[in-house]
């Protein structure tokens, strides 16, 4: 299989979104986290059973960094994604999102209940508990950030996301990509990642699976309660030996959960 790549323009043509896709089977749309999109082993695994569509959040598409300035807030973003799904001709898909992308998937499923057949949220953000504050990952030192996102900050998944391999030019390009991805997604959540999902989440109709890394040091697993108590019948699965990105540290395990929950 090879990953297909296309760029769709939405929002009166002002916002260009690159979409990676691969696979066969029921449609699945994956919304990445705050650190950018990478066609990783988890998506590769999902593509065995689903037609996977993975859009890049506005601003993070390499050729279109400034497109992010055309969006003013979360409402604009949700409308953009509605346009994108229409552009892809996808409806009634499994929506799956990680971290920031989890919040986006949940907002989309709340705004357009019909657009999601199943909803899978992996360590999503969207709520705030005073007793369990979420660290502002945008102002952490690089080493602290790695240690917050990954259970093993030196493991292959961490190196893949934050890696410093390669020549100086590649390293600089990687840092630009990562920084701009955090800035572009951060536009919708700064300074506290609670933008009112609690008022809207009751509109979600799709059966929902919550997947949480047991050792998530960024968004502690207690946040699963915030989602579970508002989504009747939501299932919560905790993944051992994983931090904030269980689908990257345990791709097989998380892909299996998704397959069992959202497979045709």
């Amino acid at each position, binding site marked *: 299989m090879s990953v297909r790549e296309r760029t769709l323009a939405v929002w009166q043509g002002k916002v260009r979104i690159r979409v990676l896709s691969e696979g066969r089977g029921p449609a699945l749309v994956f919304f990445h986290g705050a650190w950018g999109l990478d066609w990783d082993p988890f998506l590769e695994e999902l593509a065995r059973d689903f037609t996977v569509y993975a859009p890049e959040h506005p601003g993070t598409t390499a050729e279109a960094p400034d497109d992010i*300035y055309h969006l003013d807030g979360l409402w604009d973003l949700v409308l953009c994604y509605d346009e994108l799904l229409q552009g892809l001709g996808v409806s009634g898909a499994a929506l799956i999102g990680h971290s920031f992308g989890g919040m986006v998937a949940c907002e989309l499923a709340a705004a357009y209940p019909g657009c999601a057949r199943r909803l899978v949220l992996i360590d999503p953000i969207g709520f705030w508990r005073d007793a369990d504050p979420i660290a502002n990952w945008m102002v952490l030192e690089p080493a602290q950030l790695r240690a917050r996102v990954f259970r093993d900050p030196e493991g292959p998944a961490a190196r893949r996301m934050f890696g410093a391999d390669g020549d100086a030019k590649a390293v600089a390009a990687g840092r630009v990509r990562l920084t701009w991805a955090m800035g572009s997604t951060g536009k919708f959540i700064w300074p506290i990642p609670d933008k009112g999902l609690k008022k809207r989440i009751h509109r979600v109709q799709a059966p929902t699976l919550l997947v949480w890394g047991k050792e998530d040091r960024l968004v502690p697993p207690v946040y699963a309660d915030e989602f579970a108590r508002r989504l009747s019948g939501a299932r919560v699965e905790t993944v051992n030996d994983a931090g904030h990105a269980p689908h990257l540290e345990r791709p097989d395990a998380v892909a299996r959960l998704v397959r069992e929950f959202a497979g045709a």
Partner: protein
Amino acid sequence: MKISAFHLMPHRELPPDFESRYESVWVTPPWWELADAGRVGQYYNWTLDELIHAARAGFDGVCTNEHHQNAYGFMPSPNLMGSVLARATNGTNVAVVQMGATLPTSNPPIRVAEEYAMLDCISGGRLVAGLPLGSPMDVNLCYGITPMEHRERYREAFALTLKAWQAREMFAWNGRYYQLPTVNLWPRPIQQPHPPVWVPGSGSISTFDFAVAHDVCYCFLSYSGARSAKTMMDGYWQVVEREGREANPYRAGFLQLVAVGDDDADAEAKYARHVEYFYHKCLHVPAPYFAPPGNQDYRSLVAALSNPVRRAENPKELRYRDFVDKGYVIAGSAATVRDRLKEEVVKGLRVGNLMVLLQIGSMPHELTLENIERFARDVLPDLRGVWDDEGWVNHWWPERLRGAAPAPAVAVGAGRA
């Protein structure tokens, strides 16, 4: 030359192990462990007294600025300080230089336009209106403004401010970030069409462009002296030339730390520990605070990461003599200070509006007064005429003070109560 006394209003008594015990001087320094409100009241009053002393000693202007949750500078409202200074300096030719109230942290931002207009009225038209973008620490981390919106908000607020001061008709403002149904400012400033505008910056290229496009005075507020500022200020003057503006030195301002003694040894004996306190404790801030993602636009981000400037020195590894050698602080005898200021800063960077920081870190009140007096008496008179032979007009100084020596002028307000 116009030469103004700048003040940060720092905590002067941080504990000796401050920088190893706490993560930052800014955003997160714990108030209850580090400060006492009664003592802080004393700092504010010392700060005001020191600036008033400078005004009486012969400085052309007095400057205050805005920071939040910051132990090295905690004037969250510089206009409260400016208001006291405006009243206290009535009857003089000293400008009240607000460096200043930060537009993106004021909501709605016409609050700044209103308060500056008040200051201009109270001072009899002696206001210099600094309109800073604000630091990421203040604006993004303390006041919660989204980094990616920071500059856009500033630019919109800047345009609104200028229009609010000048518009003859009331107007509605339908902006992206601010909507105001009826803008009809009361009061308006005395100075017409508006008070001189200074835009402080810390070397960002986009701020050069903005300052030149709007024909304001660009002020580089640096703590690391003229040598490290040279490339940056050269870049500014290139933009000035490219845009076809005249190379008037008064369109540039610069902040320099200065300490004057009898001779070099006396200066070291008096000031060394206060200078080290400033660089070791007051600048103790985690690097990521300066650059939350999105604050820098994409073009600047690519430029910064692809061509990293020579890694900045870590001031914690430097001592007093390093700071003096490298020009972070210009210190020594009056003659040394005068010559270095003239060559490195005024001529070297082409600066017409010089600001000097004379209260540094833990420097106590009495020593600060002494430093101010020595500078005013032994240094300032020799610098004042530096640009006179070139014949430039300081368009960025209150018009009625442009030619004035700092002798008492017609009393405004003060004597009439």
